[in-house]
Structures are given as C-alpha cells and as structure tokens.
C-alpha cells in the first residue's frame, strides 16, 4: 500500500493513515512547540535583562571579587577576581567529594556486608542504620551534625583529646597530617598510583595463573615490593605532625578540619552510606545461593567465600548504581552551603548576589557539576569494565 503512494495522486486520507507521515508530523509538531516555548522564554529573558540594563557575558568574572572566603585549599585574597573565588569553591567541593567518596565506599560496604552477618546484633544494627538514616532528609541531618553534635563540643579551653591522635573542640577537629601540603599531595598521589599499580599487578598475576596454571611469583614479589615501598613512604616520608594541645586552649600541628567541613563530611558520608549499604546488600543477594554452597563445599570458610567468590560477582551489580550514588553525593555537597561551608555553590551564590547575574552564574554552576558528574561516570565505567565477566 505504502510503496505506490508516490505514484498515485495526492490523497489526504491515505496520507493520514500512513504511519510514516505521523512519525514525521509528530516530530515536526514537537519541534515547533519546543521552539515556540524556547523563543517565548528566551525572548522574555532578553527583554527582562535589557530592561534591567544588563548584557549577557562572562567578562564580570575578571572583576575583583571583594569578599573573603573562610577556608580554601588554594591561595586566595579578597581582591582576587571572581573566577579565582569560584576556583576556591571548586577546590573545597572537590575535597569534600573525594573524602566523601572514599569514606562512603568503606562505611557503605561495611554496613552492606554487615547485613549478612550471622551476629544478630550486628545484622539488626545495620538494618536500623539504613532504616533510620534513609528516611530523614539530608539537610536536617546536616544541621543536626553541625549544630547539635559538633556545635556542642567543648570550647578550646577544655577540648577533648583522643589518645594523642585527635583533638576535638567546637572550632573543629584536629587530626595527624603530613608535614606540608606538598608532602600530603605526594602521599595521596602515591596512594592512588600504588592502588592502580597493585590492581594491575594482581590482575596480571591472576591471568597468568589461569592461563599457565603456575607462575605469578614475580608479580607477587612486585606486589610485596610495592606494598613495602608505599608503607615506607607513608610512615617515614611524609613528616607526620600530630596535633598538640596548647596550655591556654587551642591546638598546634596536625590538620584542622573546620567544624563546617567536618559536619558536612560526616552528614554526607552517613547519609550516602545508607544508600550504598542497600546497593551492596542487593548486589550480594543477587549472587545465586548455589555459588555460596559450591564454595562452602570446597571447604572455604565464610569470610573467604565472601571475598573470593561472592563479592567479585556482586560487584557487577553494585557498580552501576554506585555510580549514581556517587553523583548524588557530589551534587549534595552543595547543601554544605547551608552551614556556611564555602563550597562551589556557596561561592557562586555570593557571586550572584554581588554581580546580579543569575543566568551566567547558573550556567557556571551547571557546567561545573555536569563536568564533575561526567568525570565520576567515566571513572566508574572504566571500573565497571574491569569487573565485568568476560564470557566466552
């Protein structure tokens, strides 16, 4: 029927019955509606902006910012330009995101695995944690940690010390830290590099052993050398300093995590971990019971079964939702502005308040978080690829 519509004279009824016509017509209608809406909104925007006497553009980013920022990882003075202020915000966000992801992975996995514990108390504790934390808004938890927990710590005069390693007072938390910022960066970089190298060595060794049945000794030695070198660097190379309480109250040495940072990090980690725990639990549950039984029948005990048989299989199911959970964490760091932590969003709103440029600032925020999420997705996809089964 359809193929002769070209040769026959134009026939409206035939055309209205033709699915291809509707496919095109529907798209054209959608496009027109969307374009009309866009031109309506953008036209209004243009009119509103010109009425207020503003021209769209990012040149204002080079003007001096003129506001000070409470804490920053990079050098910043109040008369630096706006783009530098935004960069400070970004660095604060990044430090929150990196520490958050690392701690969430640990706590979330632990809580997820704990829900399979034979110990009734531990099992119940894990369920209780998930059930409580997931059903209370993050912002409320953030305020709770900031005002009710960290805010109620003693003043610097009667601060709490935790066995010489940590000091707590209502200005922040003091932890042992590398001697200088450069050394700290070196330590973090070395840890990441060592972890990646170890992963590759381990995979190489496993592959070799599967293919040849023997060998892998050199790789094992390589792993041990790597481990020892890393340990040596961590223990002796970083010039650790420990927080020491001063006579009159106050602390010297170590790293000060401000109360804002500590509260934001704690709230984010506790909240996100509850979701990660559920993801891990679902992942482990997705591994069929037969895998457990087969592994147990080989005489492996429960801990080993979990580590060698069940968890690697569960990872395939865990990583994709974990990715979106990490993205949520990244976006949720923006809530830290509610407790005056100067992260990206907080600096951006200050910038907006001073310059009165909502559209440009919003575009900057949007682009920043989109890029952050994109990077996380790329890394997680890479990770996902390495844990997938290579099926024959």
């Amino acid at each position, binding site marked *: 029927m359809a193929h002769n519509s070209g040769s026959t004279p134009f026939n409206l009824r035939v055309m209205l019955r033709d699915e291809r016509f509707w496919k095109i017509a529907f798209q054209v209608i*959608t*496009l027109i509606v969307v374009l009309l809406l866009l031109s309506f909104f953008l036209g*209004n925007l243009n009119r509103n902006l010109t009425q207020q006497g503003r021209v769209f553009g990012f040149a204002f980013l080079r003007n001096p910012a003129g506001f000070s920022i409470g804490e920053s990882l990079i050098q910043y003075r109040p008369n630096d330009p706006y783009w530098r202020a935004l960069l400070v915000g970004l660095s604060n966000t990044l430090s929150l995101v990196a520490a958050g992801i690392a701690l969430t992975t640990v706590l979330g996995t632990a809580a997820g695995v704990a829900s399979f514990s034979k110990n009734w108390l531990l099992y119940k504790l894990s369920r209780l944690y998930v059930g*409580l934390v997931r059903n209370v808004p993050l912002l*409320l938890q953030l305020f*709770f940690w900031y005002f009710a927990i960290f805010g109620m710590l003693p003043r610097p005069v009667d601060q709490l010390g935790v066995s010489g390693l940590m000091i707590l007072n209502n200005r922040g938390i003091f932890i042992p830290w590398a001697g200088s910022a450069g050394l700290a960066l070196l330590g973090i970089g070395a840890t990441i590099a060592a972890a990646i190298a170890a992963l590759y060595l381990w995979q190489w060794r496993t592959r070799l052993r599967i293919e040849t049945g023997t060998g892998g000794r050199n790789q094992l030695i390589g792993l041990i050398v790597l481990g020892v070198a890393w340990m040596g660097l961590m223990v002796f190379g970083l010039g650790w300093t420990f927080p020491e309480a001063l006579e009159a109250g106050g602390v010297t040495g170590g790293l000060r995590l401000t109360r804002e940072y500590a509260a934001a990090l704690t709230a984010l980690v506790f909240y996100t971990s509850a979701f990660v725990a559920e993801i891990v639990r679902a992942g482990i549950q997705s591994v069929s019971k037969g895998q457990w039984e087969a592994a147990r029948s080989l005489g492996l005990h429960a801990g080993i079964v979990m580590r060698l048989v069940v968890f690697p299989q569960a990872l395939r199911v865990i990583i994709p939702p974990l990715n979106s959970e990490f993205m949520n964490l990244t*976006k949720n760091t*923006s809530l830290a502005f509610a407790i005056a932590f100067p992260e990206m969003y907080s600096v951006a*709103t200050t910038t907006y308040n001073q310059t009165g440029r*909502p559209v440009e600032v919003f575009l900057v925020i949007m682009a920043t978080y989109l890029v952050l999420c994109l990077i996380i997705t790329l890394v997680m996809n890479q990770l996902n690829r390495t844990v997938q089964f290579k099926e024959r």
Partner: protein
Amino acid sequence: MTTVTPDSLSSAPPEVLALGPVAWAKKNLFSDWFNSLLTVVLVLVLGGGILSLIHWALTTAQWQVIPNNFDLLMTGTYPPALYPRIWALLAMICGLAGLSWGVLGRNLSTLFSRNILIGFAVVCAFIVIFPPTRPSTLQLLPIVALVAVSAAAGRQVGRRVRGMGNILSLLWFLSYFVAIWLIGGGLGLTPVRTNEWGGLLLTLFTAVSGIVLCFPLGLLLALGRRSALPLVRWLSTIYIELVRGVPLVALLFMGQVMIPLFLPVGSRPDRILRAIIALALFSAAYLAENVRAGLQAVPRGQHEAAASLGLNKPMTLGFIILPQALKIAIPAIVGQFISLFQDTTLLAVVGLAELLGIGRSILANPTYLGRFAEMYLFLAVIYWVFCYAMSLGSRRIEEKLNTDH
C-alpha cells in the same frame, strides 16, 4: 571411616527445634569466638550510647521548645482564628483515607483486626497523653473516629457499588483543589497570604503538589526517551541529563530568581509556586528514569501481541505497556516520591518556612538558644514517620499488584 545412615528414609522435613532464649542467643550471638567478641563489643558500645542518650533525654534536654511551638511547627504563622479550616482539611483527608482503606479492604473478613484495633488505641492514647496534642484532643479524637466510621462505610459501599475505585480517584483529585481553597481562602473564605502558610502544612502541600505535577511530566519524558522518533528522543534525553546533573538547591535558588526572568515583564508567580515548579521540574527528570526502567522491563512480546491485535501506538501504550511498566516501577517511583518529600526541606534555604525552616526560625529565638538537638530530633521523627509510612505503603501495593506466578 563409618557412615551414618539415617534411621528412617522418610522424606518428611526435619524436626523443627524449639529454640529457647539460651539456645537462640548461642546460635545468633555467641556461635564462635569472633561472634562472641563482636557481641560483647557491640553491647558495650551500643549500651553505652543508648544509656547516655536516655540520660540526656531525661535530664539535660529541655523539651519545652516543642510543646511551646507546636502550632508554629504544624501550620507556621497561619492565623489561629482560621484553624477550623485546617481541621476541616484534615478531617476531609482522613475521611477520604478511611474510605479508600474500606474500599480496598472490602473483601477482607474483618476490617478491624486485632492489630488494627491496637493501632487505633495507641493513636488515641498518644493524642491524649502527648503534651503538644493535648489542647487539640477534642478535635483529633473525632477525626480518628471519622477514619474508623468512613472505613466501615467504605467497605459497605465498596461491596455494593462497582467502580468505586475510579470514584475515589476522582474524589482524591478534587480534594486537592478543595485543600487549596481551604488553606488559601478566596471564593467566600477570608484569603490567607502564602507567606503565612508554613510548617508541616506547607511541607505536605509542596510535596503533594510536586508529586502531582512531576508525575505526568516524568511519564512524558520517559516515553519521549524511549520513543522511536529521534528528535523527541534527543530532546527528552537532553532535558533529563541536564537536570540530573545539577544540584537541586541550585535549581531551587535559581528557580526563585530566574522564573520571573523567563516570564513576561511584570508577571511574578508566588514564591511557593516557583519552588513547586522547580521541585517538579527536577523530580520529573528522575521519575522519567524510573519509568524508563519500567518500560524497558516490559517484554517485547507485549508490543508485538498488541500490534497483532491491531491496536495502534497510543492504545498499545495506554492499555498494554504503561500499566505493566508502572507496576514494575512502583518501588522506584515511591522512592522518588519519598526523596521529593525529603527535598522539600531545601525550601528552608530559599527562605520558605516549611517544617525545617520554621524549626530554624524557632531556634533563632533567644528563648530557645541551643535547643538544636531537641528540635532536630523531633523534626527527624516527623519526617521519618512520613517516609517510613510511604515505603510501607509501597510495599503493600507491590504485594497486591504482584501477579507473578
């Protein structure tokens, strides 16, 4: 090596061992040394924590901040003279809820089972004993009675009248507009300006409005993203990915600032309305992904079967695909609604006095200086109850709709 043969070769299931408390503890808490150690450590840590929490709650904490501000927490600065309207709204919602419960449970042999009666007793006792509700006991108890009566009535009506479900859906839909009328006034009632709406009332109103608005939009976006038409697919994908990449607080804040900019000169929608629009636009993108997962889970054969029956695209979608997809997506959709409910707390940072916002403004009052823990724990309980109830409800619906064999 000796092999032990069982005494009988019957295939009966093994005897169930009755576990006494000692045997239970031995199995679950002290099965080996590691387990025992874990138990001891947990008991010490948890016990210590719980004891100090109880100690704090009974001695140090000053709970006065809650009962003194209960009205504020529930309705914000809503004029007390107009409280009867809020009571009427609550009664209407509870009546409808009871009716729905009765209709849903029309085939049960007893609607008021022992557990439910206990539940009613607990609620009544709570209303009578809990200090903040005491002034309102006279309003609250009849409302509880109304739930029971309307449930009984709903059961009777549900048995007689067919299609009661549709009527109920319509009633719920209409109740939304009645609610707006009751809260905001107008049409014969004294108007109440929106900056006097607040507390739990505003939280619930924005959450429900957000849900109502985001559902159709999310559905359309999900269908668009799964569409065979490239243009529609791209547009939906761009929208979903852009919105999902931005923090909600940025959208809310900029929604407050930019929505007026995008509209014709001079038109400036209400602040609450702007917040609801931003919430709905945000949640729709997430909801779309949940619905998309549901759509993907519907087997291809369903499309083909529908096509072979001669159904066209809209009919296939409406009668065959969407009902199945939505059923699959229920847990995820309810999860999204729960997080939308929690997200309403962000309205506090754009300056609206919803539950958390009003809590913060009470804490700013010098009389209640430093009562953070008490206030935030109380608010946490309220949010927890609502979110937990929603997830419980979703589990019920899931069980009811589960047609797997």
